[in-house]
């Protein structure tokens, strides 16, 4: 309980009026002194509020995607028998989660049994975030005394931001295991490849009976063989290479991590062999074929980031090449804020590994001179990569990731 002496000045006013009354013999001054004293006495005699409130918290959507806003609603109910003339509610959003709309604080008067809602929107980065307690402060009608409490809300206690992907651009470089990538080699599959003369032992179901009926030749239909691939995602996690858009929202590392985790999920579901590593900590790390563990693997890789300063893409490429199996291809997720990805791709190409680059565009959102310069440099790097034969996806953040990926398929990549 806290008492505020907001009527101290009234005592001075009353004293001055009293002295003036005594000095001049004018009793109206004394009457005037009654005014501030009345306010002061009522303020001093006003009771201390004892709020009985409950708070319930809900989040919609419960598991937002990166960049997606979630609305947090606090329903504050006066469970007491008396009205609360002045109730302040202060929510405690998760640390590191920016509030993008609405207000986390409100003041209201609450009758007995009434409920007031406080709503605000947050745009969480990847991961799970804990909400704090809600602080409520009740004041009396004269605003001279207040009681403050910390209330643990019922309902949602955490906010989780999911990471999933539906497709990824990859180069035409498969391995000798069955998967879902169509190849130019005939074999088992579902897509038509060619027709050849019948050979002893061919399945009867593959014989082209229509041709046999019209020409009398016995031929066999061959299908395009589908094989698995080895894909290693390289996450550019260097702190000094990250870019962020103006205002709130995920930065380039959040978006890269998001893309990798979604790519991992899809690829592991399709029996591809997938690994994840980071620029600052190049290690061999293969992901088990399970969606949930794939996401955890990416987050673990991102969290494992050593924060080591690296500027030589050739060195990173050489370290990575020693760990990669033959025919493994690399997808580098980077904001392209410097030339490291280009030299990394060049080094890996010399070691016969195909490289694709996925780059979230953080520069077009802001209209500052610095962002414009950064955007020009990034465009130049994209152009140089494409000129060197590296499929580079310019991921415009205003479009879904899948739409941006369509560009790379036309420029040499293959869709799974």
């Amino acid at each position, binding site marked *: 309980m806290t008492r505020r002496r*907001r*009527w*101290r*000045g*009234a*005592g001075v*006013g*009353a*004293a*001055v*009026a*009293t002295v*003036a009354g*005594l000095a*001049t*013999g*004018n*009793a*109206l*001054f*004394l*009457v*005037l*002194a*009654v*005014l*501030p*004293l*009345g*306010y*002061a*006495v*009522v303020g*001093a*005699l006003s009771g201390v509020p004892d709020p009985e409130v409950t708070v319930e918290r809900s989040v919609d959507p419960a598991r937002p995607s990166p960049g997606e806003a979630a609305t947090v609603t606090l329903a504050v109910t006066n469970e007491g028998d008396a009205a609360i*003339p*002045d*109730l*302040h509610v202060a929510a405690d959003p998760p640390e590191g989660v920016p509030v993008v709309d609405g*207000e*986390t*604080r*409100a*003041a*209201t*008067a609450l009758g007995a049994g009434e409920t007031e809602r406080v709503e605000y929107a947050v745009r969480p980065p990847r991961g799970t975030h804990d909400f704090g307690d809600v602080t409520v*402060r009740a004041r009396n*009608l*004269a*605003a001279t005394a207040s009681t403050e409490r910390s209330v643990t809300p019922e309902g949602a206690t955490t906010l989780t931001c999911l990471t999933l992907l539906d497709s990824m651009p990859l180069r035409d470089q498969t391995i000798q295991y069955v998967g879902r990538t169509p190849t130019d080699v005939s074999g088992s599959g579902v897509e038509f490849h060619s027709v050849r003369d019948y050979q002893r032992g061919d399945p009867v179901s593959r014989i082209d009976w229509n041709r046999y009926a019209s020409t009398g030749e016995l031929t066999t239909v061959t299908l395009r063989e589908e094989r698995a691939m080895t894909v290693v995602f390289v996450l550019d996690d260097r702190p000094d290479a990250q870019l962020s858009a103006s205002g709130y929202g995920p930065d380039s590392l959040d978006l890269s991590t998001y893309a990798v985790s979604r790519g991992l999920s899809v690829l592991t579901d399709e029996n591809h062999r997938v690994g994840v590593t980071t620029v600052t900590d190049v290690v061999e790390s293969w992901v088990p074929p399970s969606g949930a563990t794939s996401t955890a693997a990416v987050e673990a890789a991102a969290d494992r980031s050593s924060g080591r300063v690296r500027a030589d893409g050739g060195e990173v490429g050489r370290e990575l090449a020693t760990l990669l199996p033959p025919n493994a291809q690399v997808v580098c997720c980077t904001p392209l804020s410097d030339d490291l990805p280009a030299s990394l791709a060049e080094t890996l190409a010399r070691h016969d590994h195909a490289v694709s680059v996925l780059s979230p565009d953080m520069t077009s959102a802001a*209209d500052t001179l610095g962002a414009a310069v950064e955007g020009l440099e990034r465009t130049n790097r994209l152009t140089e990569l494409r000129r060197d034969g590296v499929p580079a996806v310019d991921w415009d953040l205003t479009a879904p990731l899948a739409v941006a990926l369509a560009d790379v398929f036309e420029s040499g990549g293959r869709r799974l």
Partner: protein
Amino acid sequence: MSVDPLGEQESGIRATVERAFDDAVTRLDGVRPSALVAALAALVGALLAGLLLVGQSATGAALVFGGSLGVATYLFNSDRPLVGALGGVVVFPVGVLFAAALRHVFLASSIQVGATAFVTMGLLACVAFAATLAATRAPGQGRTWRATRRTGRVVLAPVLVFLVVVLPDLGVAATVVGALGAILGALVGHLLATPPTFAALTFPLVALVAALTVRRALRRVPIERLVPGERRDRVVRALYATQRPFLYVALASVVALLGVVALAALAASPRTRMLLSPLPPAAAGAVRALVTSTPLRLALFTAVVLGVVALVASWVVGAARRVPADWVARLLAPTLGGVVATVVVAQALVSRGAAARVSEAVGGVVGPLGTLLRALPPFGVAAVLLFVLALCATLALFAVVVFGSVVGSSRATGPALAAVSLFSLALLGVLVTRSVAPLTVGALSLFVWDAGEYAHTLREELDAGSRSLRAELVHLGGSLGFALVVAAVTAALAVTAVGAVATANALALVALLLAVGVGVALLLVL
């Protein structure tokens, strides 16, 4: 890829306008209804008090002047250089409104009436000033002082224009330098009490300036950085403790200055001999020795000079560390706005013949000032006129700063300024009119403080767009209801009991005094 520069420009202007509109909407959205109600109540109270004390015309002039001071303060507290430059333009109309308000004081029939009108109009201006800024964070948190400093930079504008446009004429330059030297010499002589004609008036003024300068230097100059780290805390505490006596000296000087001005008004002369004549010979001798003491004056002057040098050095070092263009733009914007306004207005005054009429009007002024004014071309006279107007605005804002610091509430400065001014007007109204009507102003002053301070608290505790309407309505309803009850009770007291007290009933007077005493005791205890 081709770029359309015109299109880029249009989109830039559109974006700027949209940002300004969004900014305005955000600011309006952040305004608390309690603050607006408090401002409205303050203006109603000021209007009532003004009509009772100085009449319709003077009340209007004072309120408009106070409002214009508020607008200037708001503009000068913007971080946008363009808005700061606009403030530099607005300073001159503020000076004109100050002169228009002051005219009512000089038209008073006697010194007593003039003094009452001066105090009343000053208080009315303070109420209007606070009411104008009710929806903003000003005048608290040093914002009025910031506006005063920036208005001070506008004073430089007419001086700069004068130097560039008028002084190249060598004849005029020689006259100006001679006249200014004579004026400054006379001024410094009086401030050093040589001759001691106005020593009683100048001594509290010099003491006030010295105390404020030294206190500010102690606060702003990072003296603790000159000592080793382990002793810094002790030095900071010592510096903090040293500031307080200077504040007391400053407040005592203000009180002494007001007393001397009041005595001068009563004696109809500011001369030391006339002011000290009512005192007993021994006391008069002691006071004369104090106010005419040359070593003491020199010590005060030295303190002022040292304080100013330290402040300027500290400012220059700080400025050298923060040289970004936007800081420089903010620094120069008021002066540049003032320069533009000076050139335009002075040219207009010259072309319309107003400056020539001013030259004729001041033709009779004797002494170095008269020599100076007669030597100036019309454009120079116009520049001097604008300099005086800007100086008036600066002094008015400085007076608000001083009054605000006397009022005491550094947190809710605006509501405190309005409420204290209104309550003072109520006291003045009771003193002058001896009627019940000023009690209404007194009741309104308390409501203004209640609503304004509550709005200020909400602004501190909530974010700009947070909802609070329901809580505010409940609080305002309770406060207004209580104000009506208290006003009714006091009115009944005034009509019934006071009539008897005023004539003979000493018992009722004692009863009232007891009631007030019990109230004060309750206030202190609870």
